[in-house]
């Protein structure tokens, strides 16, 4: 199953990945990171299709995508 890993310390919470994930797996966190910003987190990893849209649009290169 494909999966993504988000670097939460570098995330600035612009939420572009949230808008472009076709499966709606990425959500804004209620917690704050080192920069004092609401980062994003993934739930329901099992539905990820590895389309890389989140990683391609991320302005801060925070997302790594893995595939079997």
């Amino acid at each position: 199953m494909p999966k993504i890993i988000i670097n939460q310390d570098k995330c600035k919470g612009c939420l572009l990945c949230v808008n472009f994930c076709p499966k709606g797996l990425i959500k804004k966190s209620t917690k704050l990171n080192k920069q004092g910003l609401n980062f994003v987190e993934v739930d329901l990893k099992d539905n990820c299709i590895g389309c890389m849209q989140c990683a391609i649009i991320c302005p801060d290169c925070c997302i790594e995508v893995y595939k079997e």
Partner: protein
Amino acid sequence: MEKIFKRGESLYDVATHYCPGCGHGIAHRLVAEAVDSLGIREKTIGVAPVGCAVVAYDYWNFDCSEAAHGRALAVATGIKRVHPEKVVFTYQGDGDLAAIGTNETIHAANRGENLSVVFINNAVYGMTGGQLAPTTLLGQKTATSIEGRTKKAHGYPLKISEMLALLPGVCYIERVSLENPQEVLKAKRAIKQAFENQINNLGFSLVEVLSPCPTYWGLSPKESLDWIKLVMRKEFPLGRIK
């Protein structure tokens, strides 16, 4: 598991100083990916502009130089003439390339210097507080056009890419956008093409990138991308110009 998307070798693993949703982060990554995919990291020299991207050399893992405001193409000309075997590119915003540096831009293009240019057009001066730039759209509100840009007071948006396309020394000009992942991939291909042209000694190549500035457009990051698609693209149509 196999990693299918990761940060390339040409992009340092550091946080950037850009605002959330800024297009510079994406454009920096596209340049780094183009350099990595061509395997030219060891012989690439970038010239950073004055503007928001002034410390771009802190994010790229290849040689870089800084230039005075607008003079990146003059500095790049010198570097390329002394080191013709190196791949030299400039990375400039609209306030740098199309305002204070118009002179250097036009003459470098007219001389047909064998250089690649990544031109980030976000329709405002970002670094200094969102003032009106030559590329600001008619009706667009900025810090120095609070009622919106008017043709009577400020003139029309400057289409520097179309102007440069008239010059015989220019071999390649394309306008791309960062409005969604599909367009980002097209932008990546265009930037790679500009580097390939230089490697093949074809002359001056420029890629104009329509890039979001959520902070000074007063929009959210997603609304900024929609604004590029619905408003900015009408004034600056995408596609290959030359």
